[in-house]
């Protein structure tokens, strides 16, 4: 019972209204569709804007052993730096960090961590979907962390949208794809940049 499988840990953070929970959902459901073992826990203070919204995501090839709250993480996604502090303290060395370029100002230790500044909001806005930053981010993370394929990601997104929000699906396909493609483009440089 103590044999461990490869487990990808990811902590997500942002402020209410940025779509952090949807981002985590899409990645989690995408992974499940690919037959992975997944554990996800989201914490958010209601529908209020400006409040914190966080999520813990663990993806593995075999049954997961770790409890659903992480003390350490191998990767993180930050749509905003307002509630970044608690996560910073949990990053393992060499952790992969994706931050939303437009809203993340806190300086990061690029020597210790693999930092990727994703122009999520900007690209989404450019695509005419101002609210789609978190989908761009999901696409980029999936590609860079290499945990979920684009198809699975899109299928996962469809599952994640509640019946009364279906109008957003098409826009999300666009933003997810854009993020995923952008992410793939970054892969080479990151490998080198370390």
């Amino acid at each position, binding site marked *: 019972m103590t044999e461990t499988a490869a487990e990808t840990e990811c902590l997500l953070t942002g402020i209410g209204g940025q779509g952090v929970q949807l981002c985590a959902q899409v990645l989690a459901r995408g992974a499940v569709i690919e037959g992975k073992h997944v554990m996800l826990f989201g914490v958010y203070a*209601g*529908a*209020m804007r400006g409040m914190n919204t966080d999520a813990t995501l663990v993806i593995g090839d075999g049954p997961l052993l770790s409890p659903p709250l992480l003390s350490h993480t191998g990767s993180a996604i930050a749509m905003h730096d307002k509630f970044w502090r608690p996560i910073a303290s949990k990053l393992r060395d060499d952790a992969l960090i994706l931050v939303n370029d437009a809203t993340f100002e806190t300086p990061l230790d690029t020597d210790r961590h693999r930092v990727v500044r994703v122009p999520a909001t900007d690209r989404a806005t450019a695509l005419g979907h101002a609210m789609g930053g978190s989908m761009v981010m999901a696409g980029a993370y999936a590609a860079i962390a290499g945990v979920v394929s684009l198809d699975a990601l899109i299928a996962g997104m469809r599952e994640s949208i509640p*019946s*009364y929000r279906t109008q957003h699906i098409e826009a999300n396909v666009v933003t997810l794809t854009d993020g995923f493609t952008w992410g793939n483009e970054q892969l080479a440089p990151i490998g080198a940049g370390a």
Partner: protein
Amino acid sequence: MTNVEMRQVGNKLPELLLTQEHHMCPGCGEPLALRGYLEAITELGMTSRAIGVAGIGCYTSFSMTMDVDLVQALHGRAPSVATGVKRMRPDSIVFTVQGDGDMVNEGLQEVLHTAARGENVTCILLNNGVFGETGGHMTATSVIGQRTKNSLEGRDAAYHGYPILIGDLIARLEGAAYVARGSVHNAGAVARTKRMFKRAFQAQDRKQGFTFVEVLTMCPTGWFIPTLEGPDYMNETLGEVHVMGELKVDGVVRSTDELHDENVRKALEMEQALARGGIDDHHD
């Protein structure tokens, strides 16, 4: 850009608020009702006698922001708590603030028994037809066809039953002295609802018996609609069933049906008044 020659109309904030900030959702109707009863208390000069008893719902956060001596009750229990307060402090002005989930679901019998006993307290119902706090589920006042978290295609009478028109039930209890149903779907309604609060508090002060003011409030979050659509959606759904008006005045009972016509008329007058250049609350 303010204008020195101009006089201020009303206050930006009700005097009885300790802070302007609150965590209510955008477009929530509850703060509008809050303004109404707080200003009513001040304008009636009842400030230093007012004791509030709060139920559990989104409005519970007002318990901390109102500058009112307050007892925080459990979900549904406010009318009994208010009874204990009033029996021990008969000269104070005691009011409860409850939602439809609190009053018409969990605590239905509390408010009815309190009314039947003719307790000299005022119960205020903020009726949005959903449990806002817990995510917008249907309550005992949700009207047929209303969108709620567990009836996204609208409440279905066959499976969920029919809404309770609480005001009609209370009006028929002999212990009830004044019963009215207001709304905050537009400025006129807000102003008229404030007058209802005043009549209720005045009747309580004259020890005429139990007084009750229901207020329809928007809950865009619980209805899963844009904030902007809140007032009209409310008017066309809740407002069509829980019709605005006075259900009992000086012992005379009028059913919600009877109110319908009268209500239309009043609303009209109100708009004209607005067009003429606004309402002056101090004239009644």
